[in-house]
């Protein structure tokens, strides 16, 4: 097991390195000249050249990459070209916000989705299964701005229970921010729920057909022991992978939801950076998201191995 985790960790580092190269290369072929962007179109060629040599932009790309990577590793992520703020503190601030939102959403839809999926499989083809399967599917189709607006109309305009805007103050703690997190988390959950339900339902239905579940039933075990001790451990295996992919998306891909609720998350920061061609900010946020993706998959692999002794003991 230790060797397994070490191998996976090495893989994480390798993936991060490779993706940093891709990010660096991609941002360097983006149209537009950095010096022109900073100094304006009217600046003289000489001034631009000076700035370029000052920024190291006249050096070969490989050297620039090494320099940039070294700074990233040291924690010097540069300053934003558009706001002049320290990229690192802005990005980490937003990362923290995204993590809070992701946590709330994750705790909402993952357990619920697994539960509903197991129930749907256990009562396969019953009316309950139909309701769960089609109901969760309906929300995949609805775009987040529709669900989000509907939720705002209901819970904030009509009932007045929750704030419509989630524009939390920078640095506010989890519990202060919590009421603002509920509606965006709910929006995300409704969209993601169906993936978890469908995956869990399909794999649970398969596991229920296995001989070892028949053995468990003919051992006279109670339904809860069969479902939660014998079935779930096996049927969660494919679900874990789907859920892990969802985590990366929760952290960095919630551009629409964050915009609807005006929530200061990482997704909106990426959008902002791209719109402004803010290279240091693009590079830092993209790499952050990549690392989160890879780490989420690492966690998924570990959970997978914990659930599956055939991988754990090799």
């Amino acid at each position, binding site marked *: 097991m230790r060797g397994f985790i070490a191998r996976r960790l090495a893989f994480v580092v390798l993936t991060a390195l490779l993706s940093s190269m891709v990010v660096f290369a991609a941002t360097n072929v983006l149209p537009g000249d950095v010096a022109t962007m900073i100094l304006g179109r009217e600046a003289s060629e000489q001034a631009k050249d000076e700035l370029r040599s000052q920024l190291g932009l006249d050096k070969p790309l490989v050297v620039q990459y090494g320099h940039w990577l070294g700074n990233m590793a040291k924690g010097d992520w540069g300053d934003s070209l558009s706001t002049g703020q320290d990229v690192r503190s802005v990005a980490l601030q937003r990362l923290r916000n995204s993590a809070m939102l992701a946590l709330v959403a994750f705790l909402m839809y993952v357990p619920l989705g697994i539960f509903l999926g197991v129930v749907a499989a256990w009562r396969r083809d019953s009316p309950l299964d139909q309701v769960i399967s089609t109901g969760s599917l309906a929300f995949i189709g609805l775009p987040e701005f529709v669900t989000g607006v509907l939720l705002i109309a209901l819970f904030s305009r009509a009932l007045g229970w929750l704030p419509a805007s989630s524009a939390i103050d920078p640095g506010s703690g989890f519990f202060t921010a919590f009421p603002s997190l509920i509606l965006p988390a709910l929006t995300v959950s409704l969209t993601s729920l169906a993936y978890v339900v469908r995956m869990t339902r399909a794999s649970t239905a398969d596991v229920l057909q296995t001989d070892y579940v028949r053995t468990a039933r*003919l051992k006279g075990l109670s339904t809860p022991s069969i479902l939660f001790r014998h079935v779930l451990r096996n049927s969660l295996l494919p679900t874990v992978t789907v859920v892990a992919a969802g985590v990366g998306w929760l952290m960095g891909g919630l551009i629409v939801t964050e915009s609807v609720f005006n929530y200061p998350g990482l997704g909106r920061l990426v959008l902002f950076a791209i719109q402004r061609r803010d290279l240091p900010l693009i590079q830092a946020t993209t790499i952050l998201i990549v690392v989160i993706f890879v780490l989420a998959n690492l966690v998924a692999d570990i959970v997978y191995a914990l659930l599956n002794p055939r991988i754990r003991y090799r």
Partner: protein
Amino acid sequence: MAPPTFQVQDLSVVYETDSGPVPAARRISLSVDRGETLGLVGESGSGKTTLALAAINYLPANGRVKQGASRLNGLDLLRLPKREMPRMWGSRIGLVSQDPRSAMNPTLTIGRQLDEMGCRHLGLGRREARDLALAMLGKMGMSDPPSVVGRYPHQLSGGMLQLCAIAMALLTHPEVVILDEPTTSLDVTTQATVLDVLTELKTELQTAALYITHNLGVIARVADRVAVMYAGEMLETAGVKALFARPLHPYTLNLLRCVPHLGAGARAERPKDGKASGITRAAAAEADASGIPSARLASIPGSLPPWDDLPRGCIFAPRCPLVMDFCRVSRPPLVEVEPLRWSTCLRWQVLLSDEGRAQAVSVETRAGVPPLVEDTRSRGPLADGGLQPSQEAVSVPVLEVKDATKAFGPARSRAHVKAVDGASLSVPQARTFGLVGESGSGKTTLARVIAGLELPSSGRIFLAGESLKPSVGARGPHMLRRLQMVFQSPDGSFNPRMTVGRALMRPLMIMNRLDRKNARERALELLEAVRVPASHFDRYPSELSGGEKQRVAIARAFAGDPDVVLCDEPISSLDVSVQSSVINLLADLQEEAGTAYLFISHDLAVVEHLSHRVGVMYLGKLMEIGEVAKVLAPPYHPYTEALLSAVPVPDPTAASKPVRLHVSVSSSLGIPSGCRFHPRCPRYLGDICRLQAPPWRLSDGRVIPALAPTSAAGPDRPAEAAHSISCHIPLEELVRLQGAG
């Protein structure tokens, strides 16, 4: 008299399917008493598992009990509400299913799965339940139960896992236990040990047991009484000795005559070869009494009646050699024809005489089937390759394997395993070399190496003296034509989207370079030769039965008049009655076409029946090799000895030979040092077995050290000698030990 422990009365089960109701079991009654074992025998589709599961009120959602009762000590299980069943299952009813690999939960340790029984049914705490589980495993003769309970199923060998599953089923001392083919997925040596443990435990606990199997040998060993099922009905039931000695239903009789009996003699010593051994003569005498030549197995023509069109009369009438008009009038009931013997056959009295039995056994003959002659339409490459069958040619090996080794995994790593290690053998024309061994012995790998599907790590293969390229892709069409293969599963070896006709024509057009018209003609001839109706030419493989598919696979292998056909377990996926007809077919084709076979099987009796020479493999090494009669008579290699004594013989009066191998705990495939068999060898000598590879001991008295390359040992190499054994124990000593044992 008290009612029997478990009693099924007049039970009928129906499955509702999309294509209408399937009456899978019809009006079946049986009973099992304390400490008794009822063997339920039948081929696939006989409804034996359906019956057993319905009797314990466990049916799939589309299954329904139409009528009948199933009483456990007087309590009708079928009248109990569903929610009460979990209190019965596990505590009063036990079940052991076929494949422990799929029947045990892969994500829970053995201990946790065993503990559940004590916790749920006996009201024990976790610790007490564990103590009980350990005690149960100890009682089964396991040497180290604590190490077993801590493991996950994938870390245990199949045999050890099945022992655990048996312990689990019997932990709560149920009143009745259903054993559904519990040893079918196990190796024969493991099966023998598991059966011993099972019998002992069952006797001690006085459990009533319903033992379901298709294997008559196993039934003879474990059952007290036997019930024979066919197409959802029971045809005969009797005490085990009476049933095997004197079956009173033609189906039972044919079933018994379908399987080759170990020791019944091989083709190598058929009377025409003029040197029958003692065993063969005895077998021949017995065969003569019943009018069946020992060289030919009985087979049951036809197939199961379709569910939607069951015959009105006797269910077996359409396939019965004794059928009369009155058999077809109405369904005959199961009646007590003699004291304690029930049969549905209206003509059971015919079976009391030898002539009657001879009349009741259906033996397919080749009469009327045109012999498979060499194809005259082929152009070109056939001329340079085809050997002319002649007496002298027998001495020239058609297939020769020299020191073939196949290793998997990177060298010098722990994963490096020699699946085949230095195997040498040779097969002359028109002869069969039987390769026996248990799972993991490397016999299939060796066949794949010969076929060029796996690249050998070293060694060479010769076809009629010509060296073969290692890779099948490099061999060229005329070499491919001469070396063909028949695989275990006919389903996997056909393209499901290609008709039978096209599947046969393709090799003819590619390898024999026939044009479309000639290929079609030849394909139809081939179908006729393997007794598949020409109407199947345009059908898809999925429309054929398992036996028909395997026949077509054989026809395809013979399409190019091959010199050698490699048969890898060609009958093990087939039902008993179909197996025998495929065995007969292979024998006939060999006689007609002079083809050499490498016949791989785990079934010693089948290998004995078909082979002239035999090689016994264990963990990648040949342990013993020689003429079939010599290998199957002392001196044996200790492994062969164990294999032979483990084979269940379909004769309940046969004395059980007590050589037993222990069931290995672990599933890992480590290869032991020295002699690979030493950790399990009942005749283990000491350090020499552990440290040194054993020499080859030839029947002419010569001893070839293990280190000498076998090809350098002169003309009388182990691969060609009459009989050679790879063992540290001298042959005379083996004879002395085994003669006494």
